[in-house]
């Protein structure tokens, strides 16, 4: 799994940082997503998929085959 985030799209809702805090964080100054781990271990895949699904700005892309 390979994750990319689009900082320009991100609206700082914080859903990803809530659901997968080992993978996503937020910049303190404006809440924009910070990707902590672009290729997380399998134990995080479920939470990453949910994060991408509920991201209101579609700012998270998950490549399952990478």
């Amino acid at each position, binding site marked *: 799994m390979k994750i990319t985030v689009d900082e320009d799209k991100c609206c*700082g809702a914080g859903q990803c940082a809530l659901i997968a805090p080992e993978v996503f964080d937020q910049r303190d*100054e404006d*809440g924009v997503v910070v990707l902590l781990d672009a290729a997380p271990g399998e134990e995080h895949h479920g939470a990453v998929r949910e994060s991408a699904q*509920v991201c209101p700005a579609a700012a998270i892309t998950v490549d399952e085959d990478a």
Partner: protein
Amino acid sequence: MTDTAATNTADLPEYPAPRDAACPFDPAPAARAEQAAGALRRVRMPTGQAVWLVTGHAEQRTLLGDARLSSDVTNENYPLPVDRPRPEESSVGFILMDDPEHARLRRMVASPFTVKRVQALRPAVQRIVDERIDAMLAGPNRADLVQDFALPVPSLVICELLGVPYADYDFFQRNSAAVINRDTPLPDRDAAMGALFSYLAGLVDDKAGSPADDVLSGLAQRVRDGEIDRNEAAKIGVLLLIAGHETTANMIALGTVALLEHPAQLERVREGDEATVASAVEELLRYLTVIQSGLRRVALEDIEVAGETIRAGDGVLLGLELGNRDARVFEDPDTLDVHRGARNHSAFGFGVHQCLGQQLARMELQVAYGTLYKRIPSLKLAVDAAELPFKHDGQVYGVYELPVTW
């Protein structure tokens, strides 16, 4: 198209429609009938404007994530909730604007609402909640849970975050209540909005001279740096003050009514661990969806969705309370089940306008629900539920009063 359509809308169903008094937690039966008929329906607003009502969860998410739907209140076709002259600018900061200006302003005030900052605030919220419960328990064993608990808790928190003196609570609560009531006569609503604007503008001026660690001081600094003007700063302050306390207050009170009416669910919350309480918060957000009049948008281009074509210039309402009862997404959607784990609800909206304060709201609700029923296990309604004054006329649903005893 609105001018010609307005003369032909008499036969369309009205939205919003009245709820069934016997089912105060459920969406209006007429709106449910439209949902049963399709994901996209034509309805008539109170202004007479014919608009699309989006009833499906998936369709709402698709459309709220589509930049071809605009939130720009100055667009000549943007659906206004009441008959009034078209505003020349948004009166409540960035929520009635589009990107990129929306994103620029929103990011200026996002910092206190991140997951980490909100978690750091949890002990302070716990203290506020405990103090309000202490005060209730010290008095006679009867209270109005709205005035004594549901409103003060989020109001104290947002005052602290923004840098608004809580001593002014009566003033700003009275005016924000007038602003969000659908039936407030227009001149009164404008006067209330004007009073809040002047008040926040004055606070921004004060903070410029004596800054503190709060949102209004940050905005005052940006005014001084020329990033925004005083007018914009004050409007963002109005938005955060209203949104920061009315919504959560209604969820605390209405959620308590719902749980008292579903004792087995209440028992699970009272006996549950933190994860159970967090799950209950998501389910109550879904089940109650207090934003009850639909999110409003206008199409900038033709958009194909669910076999229909939304034309450029068409108004669109997203009925969140309907999408959150969509049986295609939520099994047995009309059942309150605190173990459902319903994190994919749309109670905070969707798209780039999704609620900026949602993590704060979640935490406040977790602390409020997680503490109140444990500390007052015999809490019960002091009147019959049917006698409660539900906010049928509010942009935000809830109860005006909640007499309880224990």
